[in-house]
């Protein structure tokens, strides 16, 4: 994956020059934030107002996609995007951050003498001393 600074090179000046004159509400840094949000800095997506996100997505896509691309090539890209989206959701659902506490772990032993510790392999320093 290229570093965000490289990925964000195209919108640095050309997007600003292309869109800002026609539409002074266009903020090139938001288009850059859109790219960086999918590379390494997901929090940046929060900086772009919801209703403006599609506009910036399209302005970035127009830069990236070859205008002579055929419909078949585009359909393939859409399928790819669909798969990436499904993967993303699957990852999110299986993420340990989202699992409720204790749900993913084996149930702790209820036998009275057995200690319930998370790392049974580690020796207890008090016992060894």
């Amino acid at each position, binding site marked *: 994956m290229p*570093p*965000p*600074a490289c990925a964000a090179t195209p919108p*640095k*000046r050309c997007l*600003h*020059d292309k869109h*800002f004159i026609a539409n*002074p*509400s*266009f*903020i*090139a*840094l*938001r288009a850059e*934030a859109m790219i960086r949000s999918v590379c390494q*800095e997901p929090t*940046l997506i929060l*900086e772009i107002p919801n209703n403006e996100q599609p506009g910036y997505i399209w302005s970035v896509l127009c830069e990236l996609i070859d205008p002579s691309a055929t419909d078949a090539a585009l359909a393939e890209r859409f399928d790819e995007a669909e798969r990436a989206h499904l993967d993303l959701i699957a990852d999110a659902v299986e993420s340990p951050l989202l699992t409720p506490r204790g749900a993913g772990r084996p149930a702790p032993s209820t036998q009275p003498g057995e200690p319930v510790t998370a790392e049974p392999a580690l020796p207890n320093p008090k016992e060894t001393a």
Partner: protein
Amino acid sequence: MKPEDLHRDHVSALVAGDLETAATIRRQFSANDRSFAVDYLRGTTAICLEYRFGPGAGLGAGPVDHDELASFMTEVRETTRGAEPPPDYLAIEAVVRSLYGEPHLLEPLTDHQRSQALYSVLLLQTRRFPWLATNLDHTFGRAKLLITTWILGRPTA
């Protein structure tokens, strides 16, 4: 009182956190003063930013070191966590990078957005490097040279 003193007092009050005095001074501003106040704030902020991002801020240095900028933005987020209204982090990034070779990032912002973002940066820098706040005269002297260069194209008249 010279107009420059007015701007100097305004930024000193901002750095000291005395927002009442700053608002009183702003009431004496004319229409020209209002736009120049942003430039004065920008010049002072540029001098303070040189301690973090290297010399030449606003004078053709750049591009900014992105790792340094990322850690700077993390600090900004930490110090302003829970602030109401939430600061415009992209505007803050824009004012920093506009001083390091990307002035077009400043164009979409209004004067109000610019001064708010510049003020957040200035406050963070003067808290991190307290000698900037205690030796404001030195900072203003250098900021004056910088702003003169912006206007006239050379350091002194």
